[in-house]
Each structure stands twice: as C-alpha cells, then as structure tokens.
C-alpha cells in the first residue's frame, strides 16, 4: 500500500482525501497546507505519491511540483484541480505532475487515479 502526502490549504479537503485513501488501505504519512510545506514534507518523507492542490498560499501547487521535480524527477504527484482550472492543470502536467483529480472528489475516481499512477511508477 502506498504512502501518501496530502497537500491542500483547506483542512476540509485534506481530511476528505485522507478518508478516501485510508479507506483503500493507503497510509497518509503527512499533510501540507501550502506549497513550501509540500516541498519540505516531500524532502522529509519521500512519499510514494503526493496529492497536490493547485491554489495554495505562499507557493502554488504548480511551483511546488517544480520544486519537487528539481529534487527528484521521478516523484509521483497527482494534482487536485477544480472546475475551470484546465490551463493550470496543463501547466502542472507539463511541470511533471502525473495526473489530476477533480473536485468535488469522487472516492472511486480518486482511488482509480492513484492506482493508475502508482502502477506506472512501479
């Protein structure tokens, strides 16, 4: 089972993702509430996968993806996007994110997306 880092500035969203991934048997090893923290936590924890919100204070999710990619280009990151963020998702994917999930989260699609990127990462 995968070790997951959840990055989102809303504790609401963090909790929701945690519940979904834990129900699937994954372990949430850390949480980050902004882009800087996401990069720091990634360095500390080296998780199998990161769920990364795009809009966060201090450092956006996209910049955090770039930051993590500089450290480890094989890092596995899934963007959390919302309605109307198509161009930002594109940019994140170009920066190295593997895939994206769309808010509001549907547990099935979150799990399916994680399974997909983790399989590829193996």
């Amino acid at each position, binding site marked *: 089972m995968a070790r997951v880092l959840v990055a989102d500035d809303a504790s*609401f969203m963090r909790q929701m993702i945690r519940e979904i991934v834990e129900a699937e048997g994954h372990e949430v090893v850390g949480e980050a509430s902004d882009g800087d923290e996401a990069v720091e936590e990634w360095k500390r924890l080296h998780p199998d996968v990161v769920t990364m919100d795009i809009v966060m204070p201090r450092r956006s999710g996209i910049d955090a993806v770039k930051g993590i990619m500089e450290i480890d280009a094989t890092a596995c990151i899934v963007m959390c996007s919302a309605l109307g963020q198509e161009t930002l998702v594109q940019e994140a994917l170009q920066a190295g994110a593997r895939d994206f999930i769309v808010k509001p989260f549907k547990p099935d699609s979150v799990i399916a997306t994680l399974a997909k990127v983790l399989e590829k990462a193996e």
Partner: protein
Amino acid sequence: MDLAKYRTIFLEESTEHVAEISRALLDLEKDPADAEAIDLVFRMAHSIKGMAASLGYDAITVVAHRLEDRMQLVREGGGVAPGGELSLLFRGLSAIEEMVEAVRETGEPGAADAALVAELASGREAEPAPGRADPGQAEKKSPEPGDAAPASGPAAPVLEAPRPPPTVRVNTSTLDRFLSTVGEVILNTNQVRTVSQAETSQNTGLSEGLDRMERVVGELQRRALELRTTPLLRILEPLPRAARDVAQHAGVRVEVALRGAELELDRSILDRLSDPLVHLLRNAVDHGIEPPEARAAQGKPEVGRVVVEARREKDSIRISISDDGSGIDLEAVRRRAVERGVVHPDLAADLTPAQVAALVFEPGISTAEAISEISGRGVGMDAVRSTLESLGGSVEIATEQGRGTTTTLVVPITAAVQRVLLLGVGAETVAIPISRVERIEECLTASIEYSGADAFVLLDEELVPVLDLGARISQPSAEPGPLTHLVLTEVRGERVALSAERVAGQQQIYVKPLPDLLRGARALSGLTILGDGRPIFLLDPNQVA
C-alpha cells in the same frame, strides 16, 4: 462519508474565509491594486467553492465560482475597477455569507441569487466616469481584456504572513462543561478548607496539602478562564463593513480604524457587546458624519473617521467609538427630554452639557429623533445602556458640537469570577458585585425618612431613595436595630441605597449560571456556593430596584 462532520468543518472554515475576504475587500477599498488582497479573495473564494461542491451546496458553489472568476479578472486588470466593482464583490461576499448561515440554520444553502450570479459573470464593463467621456480620448480609455494582461500563467501567490501556531477547535458546550467542572473543584476546595478549619486537632500535613492544592486550583482556574476569552477582533471585525453599508445609504464617506482588537474578553460578554457596538457605530456614521460637501465647508476632510478603540484598565475593558462628525445637538436633546417628561423644565435649564448628553440613554430620547431606515431599527441607546449594566458595566458619552462624539462602553473583563459583597437579610445571605457598590454607609435607622411608601435618606446633601433589600426579595427582616447598613449603588444613573441588616464581608466567588427553574427570576443573575456549602444568589441591582 460522514456528512455532519464535513458540514461542521465547512461551516467553520467558510466562516473564517468570509471574514478574511471581508478584510481583504476593505483593504482593496483603500488600495484597489493591493495584490495580496486580490490573491487572498481569489484563494478563499476558490476554497469555499471546493468545499461547497464536495457537499453538494450548488448555490454556494456557483456564487463562489463566479466570485473567484471575477477576482481572476481583477487580477489580470491590475486591480479593482472604479465604480461598482467593489460593491459587486461585497454583494457576492454577502450572498455567500447568507447562504453559509442558511446551511448553519437549516442544513441547506437555499437558492443562489440568479441576478447576482449573472452580474458577477458579466464581463468587466469599461466605464468612463460620467462627464469625462470625451469621445476624442475614448479609445485610449477602455481597457481591453488582454490588453494589459500579464504573461500567461498564474501569478504565484506570495504571502508572507507569519504562520500562526497550530490550534485546536473546541466545541463551546464542551468548553463550558469543562469550565463548570473547574468551578465545582474550586467550590469543593473551599468546602474542604472550611471543614478542616473546624477540626480541633490541627493536622499540619492536611493544611499544607490544602495550601498546595489551592494554589494549583487557582492556577487551573486562571488558565480555564483564559480559555473562555476570545479576542475582541471577532466582534470588531465586521464593523468596518457595517459602517460602509450605512455610509452608502446615508450618502456619506467614512473610514473606520480598529485599535486594540487583540484584547480578549470573556466570550459570553463578547457576544452581548456585538449589538450595542453595531448600534453605536451606525449612530456615529448615520447621525454623526456629515455629507462630504458639508464637511469640506467646515474645513474637515471629506471622508469622516470613526475610531473604535479598546483599552484595558484594571479589571475592565473600555471600548470607545469616536467619530469626527457633527456632535450631538444638546439643545434638541434638552427639549426632547422636557417634552418626554424625563426632566422637569426648570431643572433642564440647569443641567450641564455632560448631564444633557447622558440623557440620550433615557428611553425615548434617542430613538425617535431621526428614524432613518438604518439607525431606527434594532436597539436604541437605552437598550445599549441596559445591556451594559446587565453585564456589570456602564456606558459613557462625551460630545462636542461640530467636533464629534465619543461613546465608551466599560465592561468587566470576566463575569465568571467576581468579587462580591455579601449582605445578610433575615436568614438569607445574598451577594452583589462589588463593582456595583459605591460605598457602604452605616446610618441611624431613625434618620431614614418616610414619605408614604417611599423611604429616603440624606447623604452628601442629597436625598437618596432607600430600598429595603429584605422586602425586595420577600425575606422577612427582623425588627430593625438602631443602626442600618446602607449599600450605595447606582441604578440607571440614579444613586440608590439598599438597606441590609448585616454586611457579611467581601469574597471572591465563582458564579454559576442559574438553574433553569430560576431563569425567570430577573433579579437573580447567578448562583454560588460558599465554603460552608450554603448556596448564595447573586443579585442584579438593576433588577432589584
């Protein structure tokens, strides 16, 4: 998914976000290009949208989404456009706030305001200010979307606010149960102390142990009471926005400064101060601040200024609301007080300006003088005063014609632990807050004069009404001795002497709320249990007289 749990988080977070958006929009009013504020509104709207969508609150989702999009346009345009843009953003915020409240009350957000959604979605109009639409220059003026847009890609949000320490949210009822348990511990400690003192064989171990325990319990009490306190910011924060709304209606311009919002007050007091503060602020803006032209004619800045300042003073907090407006027309107040029969015409002429100003707190003086749509609603100045008095506080006013008015609310810092004066009446002992006692006077029972059912005593060359405490609480008093204790207090601005048989000393008590059964007894404001286990009621002098 546990919906109730997520709904609770949603309500907490979105309420905070709404407050942050409000603060940021006010910043944008001062500086329409404030990038940090624009970014914050964008992010908060985005966050609310995400939560609302997850919970199926479509009405909130759509408004938050439009607000977010709108902020994107604002960001690209380099700032909030002059004209109606800011007001539109505020309306979007209010709509979200109302729907969040609706979720809190009913579990559902209700319907979104379709007209507002459409307006938020409509493109930014190029709106040349009326009178300046010079056709020759029009082409240079209308900002084309994309014209000055920055290079594609999101502006990376840069916020350098220090990260606050982690916090834990506690349900208020949990907190209250905890505090009431701490109160019980204090009472029990006092009881154990009383019993141990009654023991004839002095046990040093026991008394030392009790000393230590009392110190620790005292510490526990202080810490516990701190938990109950909340920064004033919570009730001061909405004021600038309220002022803005009133100013728009009244056709005046105003800016509100908040000072001392970091001071903390007991939460139960804080909640009750909110209405009086809003009322006083509305008064200041609606009746105080003059229209810009009138201000300019007097050599004042066109934008009026209201300063809301909180200061700590010993055991109380003083919150003053000062405006630089027209001041109160004291002659009008004097006339009105005479018309209303509040003061005798002969007396009215002799009142000092300060005394006249204080008359605005009398029922019927302030409310009817100008019933404008905004200030005429809700509480009047008399209600402000009675609210403050019921909190053991008071309200003061100072005004100067043409210069402005300052109203000050004085509130005790905590109501849960009070110093009280214990008064004996018959077999009963009652407590009144020491803060309400001017002094205690011992007088010859014979010097109390009667006029019909009313009793008076001459004190400081002033006739002061005497109220028999025993009669007031239906406690038969013994035959009066040659000496009577008079406790001087003030009730609604009047000096009053309460007569008691015994004065049983002062004490620090932990005030427990009244049991439900006694809630109807207005004269009783709380209950405590003394060291010997006797229950003692705390009297509210306002209700006794």
